[in-house]
């Protein structure tokens, strides 16, 4: 069977003019599209978010992104060497993992921690499963989860953006690391929920900041505008489908809205939830990772709704201020089940026999 299926097959010297005639199965033409071009599109889509990160966190952004990308690429190369597999670096998927990982880390994370995260992402998150296409979980999220579990304090120390007005005393404070850090909007919202503080004042003040990105948080998640530009690019290029982002954001909005309607004093407005934390980055760049998302459209909706719902559950009811990472990993785990749930029926109906 393999002999027939593999294209590339026989060459034949039959005619003087026809020195290199190939035989393979139809079709004989294809769209000029490759895994690499898909990945490059994702990288281009991430550029605005990276630029925003560079603007707000200056050198930290550059260091973190470079570290993660280099580590991821090197790890994948090394894994291929050890497993004696052909080089798979030319599909650029390791670069995408590196960038996504970097964008989901706190800006001032030490370099060695980022290296650990990168190695774990690729080695455990992807290569042990057999490389690109075979991984069950989003590699970048696996790396981030590992770092969160291992280095909790580092992973929750948020640096103030370099452009930020220092006269914003209410939320800025000095901490033991001697760096200017601040609580992220979500941490604040969590505090509000726990201590029954008025959340409304804070959320109004922060909404504008979240749109531009002038706020504490992970490297790439702060700027709503940058992520939306990148996400729009991917949608226009049809690299991603609208289904997953729409489902994630709609579900989060609905659940945020329900909480807000129940108690608008304690809970922040639903728009605030959409604009803060990693939800947007997740909706456009993390949950849409095709390898770990369902195949069918209905499956994608369910997957997206699951991600949005679990995120909001963690944010509103759970212990952590942010739940994007765990919700993505959880939904990744049930993706095979979703695929099994939504079977596609042939256009002509099920065969009668």
């Amino acid at each position, binding site marked *: 069977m393999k002999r027939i299926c593999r294209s590339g097959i026989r060459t034949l010297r039959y005619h003087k003019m026809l020195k290199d005639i190939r*035989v393979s199965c139809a079709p004989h*033409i294809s769209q000029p599209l*490759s895994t690499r071009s898909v990945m490059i599109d994702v990288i281009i889509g991430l550029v605005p978010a990276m630029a925003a990160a560079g603007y707000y966190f200056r050198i930290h952004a550059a260091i973190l992104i470079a570290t993660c990308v280099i580590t991821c690429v090197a790890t994948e190369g090394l894994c291929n060497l050890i497993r004696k597999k052909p080089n798979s670096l030319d599909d650029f998927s390791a670069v995408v993992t590196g960038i996504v990982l970097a964008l989901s880390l706190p800006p001032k994370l030490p370099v060695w921690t980022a290296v650990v995260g990168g190695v774990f992402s690729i080695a455990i998150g992807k290569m042990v499963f057999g490389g*690109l296409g075979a991984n069950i979980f989003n590699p970048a999220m696996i790396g981030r989860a590992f770092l969160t579990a291992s280095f909790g304090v580092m992973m929750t120390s948020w640096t103030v953006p370099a452009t930020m007005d220092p006269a914003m005393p209410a939320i800025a404070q000095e901490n033991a690391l001697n760096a200017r850090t601040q609580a992220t909007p979500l941490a604040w919202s969590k505090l509000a929920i726990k201590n029954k503080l008025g959340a409304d004042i804070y959320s109004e003040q922060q909404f504008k900041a979240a749109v531009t990105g002038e706020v504490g948080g992970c490297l790439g998640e702060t700027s709503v505008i940058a992520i939306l530009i990148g996400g729009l690019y991917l949608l226009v290029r049809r690299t991603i489908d609208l289904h997953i982002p729409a489902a994630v954001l709609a579900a989060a909005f609905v659940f945020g809205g329900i909480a807000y309607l129940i108690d608008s004093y304690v809970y922040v407005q639903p728009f605030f939830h959409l604009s803060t934390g990693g939800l947007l980055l997740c909706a456009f760049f993390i949950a849409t990772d095709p390898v770990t998302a369902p195949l069918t459209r209905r499956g994608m909706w369910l997957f997206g709704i699951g991600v949005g719902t679990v995120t909001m559950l963690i944010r509103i009811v759970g212990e952590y201020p942010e739940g994007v990472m765990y919700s993505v990993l959880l939904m990744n785990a049930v993706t095979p089940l979703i695929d099994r749930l939504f079977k596609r029926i042939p*256009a*002509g109906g099920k*065969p009668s026999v």
Partner: protein
Amino acid sequence: MLSQHLGAVCKPLVKKADTVQAGQKIGDRDAFVSAPVHSPISGKVKEIALRSHAVLGRSPAIVIEALPDNPTKRSGLDLGGDFDESRYSAEQICQAVREAGIVGMGGAGFPTRVKIEPDPQVPKETLIINGCECEPYITCDYRIMLEWTDQIVAGVKLAGKASGCSQVFIAIEDNKPKAIEAISAALSKSGNGDNIRVVPMKTKYPQGGERQLIRAILKRNVPTGGIPPMIGAVVLNVATVAAIAEAVVSGSPLTHRVVTVTGEAVARPGNYYVPIGTSVEDLIEFCGGVTELSAKIVLGGPMMGIAIADLGTPITKTTNAVTVLTKEQIGRAKFAGRQTACIRCGRCLQVCPENLIPTKIAHAVKHNLLDVAERNYINACIQCGCCSYVCPANIELTGYIKTGKLFLARQKKKMAESSV
């Protein structure tokens, strides 16, 4: 070639060293699903042997050496003024179609007589004439719609009469306004065309598949694993219809057909009226040869055609095109046959006209899990090639599925044999 159709292979009616006349029947079979074969030329039977066949690999063929003074067959049919289909009875038409060896000329090659003959159990209601080109690159149907317009209209009426269909649609893609105009004009000129309607179709691939046409026109689905007559529909290609007219009116068998010779590596691409049985080499030679850039010679179009390794492969009744592709047309990665891992992007699901999950089926076949492939409806695949076309990982999805279908059929056959 003694097998140019779906169904039983013909038995040769001539012996080695016999002299045959142009149009003489040289192969036939009693089986219901079969069609006779005729010699397109006068000549001497050189041998009866196995020859390369585009679909079957190798198949028995009658090799005829042409006599030096072979008259060229004139293309098209002179209807001689007004055409009146009431002169022919349905049985007469069916008989003529059978004797002329007419098969579906769009590609599948199902014997036409079997298609149009009324079935007492399921009455045929709708006749769809397929004027949608099967594939990109191919233009032979378009050409004959322009040049043989009257003949096609006559054939449509004959086919409608033979099958007893009350409504007839002529489906033409909307990028061929000239053909739509010409056919409409011919219809109104010939009168009594009230139940025959020309329907412009959206130009897309695959539109010329019969399941797709029926879905687009009748808004009904042919059951999976079923054939159009199950819902009372018959789909005939325009080339087939033209052949029907010729067979019924002049009694001449199907010995020639129009073939599109195309692709960037051909010196003089175009549509040629070719005797069936001509080798690809002769045809390409006639078209001015090919350039050094040619990388693949395909019988049929680029999406479903079959790449051949032997230029001695003959044109058959079902060969609608010879496409000679260059490396650039194929694409570098595709040419090298480089495949990467599936990233589950879902593009193949979106393009599949039959609403299948190509990647799942293909990977099941790859790992020899034919039962999984069958559970994912592998046999509903029409092998249009769209999934392979869009796959960013360059996986030969259609190739795997095709192989899987073949293996499955073989397995079934073996099981049936062992249980008897």
